[in-house]
């Protein structure tokens, strides 16, 4: 007779295999890290550039260059670029994040020879036509207007500004910043940042010797170096601050609170990730259990640690019914306090260990994910022993150590609390 009350036996994840890349250099010295897999006939090539020469008066330079990059070269118009990329079923994506700007090319292997020259043309000869800039400014200003009607976005902006001020991590972008975009600045930024000596290439997929030859043929030569200076920021610890913007019509209030913490390079980082998981890092977390599953105040609540190059930060974010906002805040602080005053039970801790190990295993789904794991450590200046240490910490951390981390990193009097809506 089947006993449905008895859970089946299970095992904790014992080994997690990371595929490490091979490193080669193009003729001009650009490092190429390759994670090979022959399963599917596809290739992902990421050209990753540090953000450079940050100018507090022109916070949009890097973002605008990233967005406008594929809008025309001396040879090709923006439409021709898009048509050719699409014709080969390829994807050409530009992305700006706080520390880096990247260009990612996804292609079937058979079309690589056709799409690489287009990518090279764009990366070395983008022209930033004024008409395209004008359209960009107009449309971005309109998008900004829509964003500023979203309480969640307003809370993110206020929070980042409070933690990071006028740096690339915190700049509060306004319509006037778009109006101030000048073509000359974009061209200058493009030349400074999108240069071989500021570039790292990470490849994943079916990328063989012949493909490397193609890549080297196009990107190993005739690409001008620059003398740009990589961004660097320093931040003081936050001190307690309450930011409240009232929205009389709000049905829900957006809450975001947190503080400057640590990044991957710090020895406490793995431990803090475990602490974060207990508090708000997964569906069964304490915040979810209390504020969603017990009280029904919200559709979702979570916490996280974000690791940037020059800082890390901890945050809790949610949108809650406007009428229960004050109660939700009380419960959030209560959960933080509990972690400092009471030890996490062995049962809960074991659950979190297993969950985090399973989650790590599951995050290595395919060759692209292995490349993502490599980027996490490579750009933080770390090696694969980082993951080894992470896994060991997850397996062995004690309840006492978690409590100590809570006392060290979750001091409520360092917190910035942002509420947009009604209290």
């Amino acid at each position, binding site marked *: 007779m089947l006993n449905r009350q008895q859970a089946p036996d299970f095992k*904790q994840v014992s080994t997690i295999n990371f595929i490490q890349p091979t490193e080669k250099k193009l003729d001009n010295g650009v490092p190429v890290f390759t994670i090979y897999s022959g399963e599917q006939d596809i290739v992902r090539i990421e050209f990753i550039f540090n953000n450079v020469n940050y100018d507090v008066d022109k916070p949009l330079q890097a973002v605008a260059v990233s967005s406008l990059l594929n809008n025309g070269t001396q040879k090709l118009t923006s439409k021709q670029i898009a048509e050719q990329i699409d*014709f080969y079923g390829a994807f050409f994506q530009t992305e700006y994040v706080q520390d880096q700007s990247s260009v990612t090319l996804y292609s079937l292997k058979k079309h690589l020879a056709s799409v690489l020259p287009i990518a090279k043309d764009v990366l070395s000869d983008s022209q930033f036509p004024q008409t395209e800039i004008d359209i960009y400014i107009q449309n971005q200003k309109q998008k900004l207007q829509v964003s500023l009607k979203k309480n969640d976005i307003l809370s993110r902006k206020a929070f980042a500004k409070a933690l990071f001020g006028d740096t690339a991590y915190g700049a509060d972008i306004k319509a006037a910043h778009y109006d101030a975009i000048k073509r000359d600045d974009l061209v200058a930024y493009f030349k400074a940042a999108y240069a071989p000596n500021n570039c790292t290439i990470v490849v994943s997929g079916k990328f063989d010797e012949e493909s490397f030859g193609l890549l080297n043929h196009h990107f190993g030569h005739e690409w001008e170096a620059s003398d740009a200076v990589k961004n660097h920021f320093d931040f003081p610890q936050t001190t307690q601050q309450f930011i409240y913007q009232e929205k009389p019509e709000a049905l829900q209030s957006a809450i975001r609170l947190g503080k400057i913490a640590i990044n991957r390079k710090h020895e406490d980082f793995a431990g803090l990730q475990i602490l974060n998981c207990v508090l708000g890092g997964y569906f069964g977390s304490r915040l979810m259990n209390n504020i969603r599953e017990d009280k*029904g105040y919200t559709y979702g609540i979570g916490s996280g640690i974000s690791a940037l190059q020059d800082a890390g930060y901890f945050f809790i974010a949610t949108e809650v019914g406007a009428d229960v906002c004050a109660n939700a805040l009380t419960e959030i602080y209560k959960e933080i306090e509990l972690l400092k005053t009471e030890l996490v039970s062995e049962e809960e801790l074991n659950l979190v260990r297993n969950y985090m190990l399973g989650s790590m295993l599951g995050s290595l789904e395919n060759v692209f994910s292995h490349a993502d794991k490599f980027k996490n450590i490579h750009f933080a200046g770390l090696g694969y022993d980082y993951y080894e240490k992470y896994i060991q910490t997850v397996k062995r951390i004690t309840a006492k150590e978690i409590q100590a981390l809570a006392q060290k990193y979750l001091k409520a009097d360092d917190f910035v609390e942002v509420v947009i809506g009604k209290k």
Partner: protein
Amino acid sequence: MVDFNRFTLANGLKVLVHEDATTPMAVLNILYDVGARDENPEQTGFAHLFEHLMFGGSVNIPNYDEPLQRVGGENNAFTSNDITNYYITLPSENIETAFWLESDRMLNLAFSEKSLETQRNVVSEEFKQRYLNQPYGDVWLKLRPLAFKKHAYRWATIGKELSHIENAKIEDVKAFFKKHYTPQNAILVVGGNVKTEDVKKLAEKWFEPIPAGEKYIRNLVQEDKQTEARTETITASVPLNAIYMAFKMPGRLDADYYAFDLLSDILSRGQSSRLYNSLLKEQQLFSDINAYISSSIDPGLFIVEGKLIEGISIETAEKAIWAELDRLKSELVSETELTKVKNKVESVLVFSEMSLLDKAMNLAYYELLGNADLLNQETTEFLKVTAEDLKRISNDTFHHNSSSTLYYLTDGNA
């Protein structure tokens, strides 16, 4: 190519297995053949509320999430107008835990009042967060009843109004479960680092003892052919004027479905598409413009939507969209343009095979459509579409007297 094996249990539950030894993980995906279209018009939002209640404990297992997290697994679910789909990913060596959890909630739920009360609140907050407290968030709450007068697609999965969710009773929940959550109405897909023979043993152990229940026979009122232009104007505290145009198109199993999908790509997939180049870049009438299809099983919608540049009149903007639609009716799409969208689709399909979860979900969905192997025939179906097909379906579809247009206007105070 997504390979699979298939068998059916004595109680009617269909099981598909996709073996993929390249991953240490496994996925257990279960699709229930029930969506918002199966709801009572006076109790809308119920299929989705019910999805939440599926996590509130089952007859033998008081807490669903905790035992799964304990073995390193994660889960989630979604509800659409057509289906409700639940999925688990976990290390493959712990796959039996997924069978245990998923079979117990198919057997019977705990039906706790506390869970119902909490999830009513959670779903009400979801309603506010996604539909009411966002600029333009309620578009689909307005557009669906404009485009559909009889069919159950006239309401969104979240429901017509908050009160329907707030008034849900435990008896209704029990009746819904009995009617729809039976082995006969479900499709189970197990994928990843598993062997078919092991899956078969586990399925027989955990799912086969569940009573077959009664087969739900769907009998939905179908929409009459639309013969008049419909418009509605909303004025709200939004910063920009926007326009949403909806046209009727055939359902997922119609021979022309793939042609409609490519037609929306011609209009709006990426920066080489027609609407983007003509209306956003050249004429600069819109700051955002899109065309897409609702991909529903019953006849659904082909949508064109855009946000207007400030100072552009809604008439000018609408006329410009019609000009592009009329062009599709009068001129053949060139071979190059057609090849371009076909190549793009082909490559999207190859890339979609990078995700185990996507593969499992797709197998379940295509099995519901009639045969999971349809998934592997998609590329062929797309490649068959001709320029003449696109012109023909454009002529069948884009008419004022079968259009539903929503003008979403700024009140000037945003």
